[in-house]
């Protein structure tokens, strides 16, 4: 089915563990984005990518790593998870920067 998917939808992990959140889109959109959403902060941009092999930092990139080897995938890795990274993570894609279509989100709990 066409669209944007995220996996896993829910994840519980422990402090210090590496976690990778997956994002896959079938529209061949150039742009992809990762956000985190926390109470009191709204959505904050972590990283974005304008095309395969091009990534740029957003507002809150520390503690996260991204890659974009293929247009359709944009994984987000927490190299050593911390409790402050407990959040809801949204991936988005778009043919232009503004036209972002959001995935269903991943709820991450770091214990």
């Amino acid at each position: 089915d066409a669209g944007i998917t995220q996996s896993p939808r829910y994840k519980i992990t422990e402090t210090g563990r590496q976690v990778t959140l997956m994002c896959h889109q079938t529209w061949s959109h150039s742009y992809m984005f990762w956000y985190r959403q926390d109470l009191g902060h709204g959505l904050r941009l972590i990283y974005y990518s304008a095309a395969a092999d091009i990534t740029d930092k957003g507002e809150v990139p520390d503690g996260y790593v991204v890659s974009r080897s293929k247009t359709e995938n944009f994984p987000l890795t927490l190299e050593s998870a911390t409790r402050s990274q407990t959040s809801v993570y949204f991936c988005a894609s778009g043919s232009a920067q503004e036209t972002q279509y959001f995935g269903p989100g991943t709820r991450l709990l770091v214990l």
Partner: protein
Amino acid sequence: EDKVVQSPLSLVVHEGDTVTLNCSYEVTNFRSLLWYKQEKKAPTFLFMLTSSGIEKKSGRLSSILDKKELFSILNITATQTGDSAIYLCALNTGNQFYFGTGTSLTVIP
């Protein structure tokens, strides 16, 4: 500091009422201002505004941008229970997106 501030934080209205949601910002050089609706899950796109004074409309929803006074408003007329959601405003500077914390709208039957 918050680059995008939305008000009110929450709003409860009755069906049929008209509401105005506000988005003020402090960034003067930006590409576009966007409005999203977030129900239980992911945000969905409503409007993109780039020029001051031009109203965008979609059914009962409309939005306008005032670049001089640094704000945008989202109007919803004849509200319905299906309009209950969090409405998010976002600023695209070209290399960053800044979202406000949103306005939570509840429409009572």
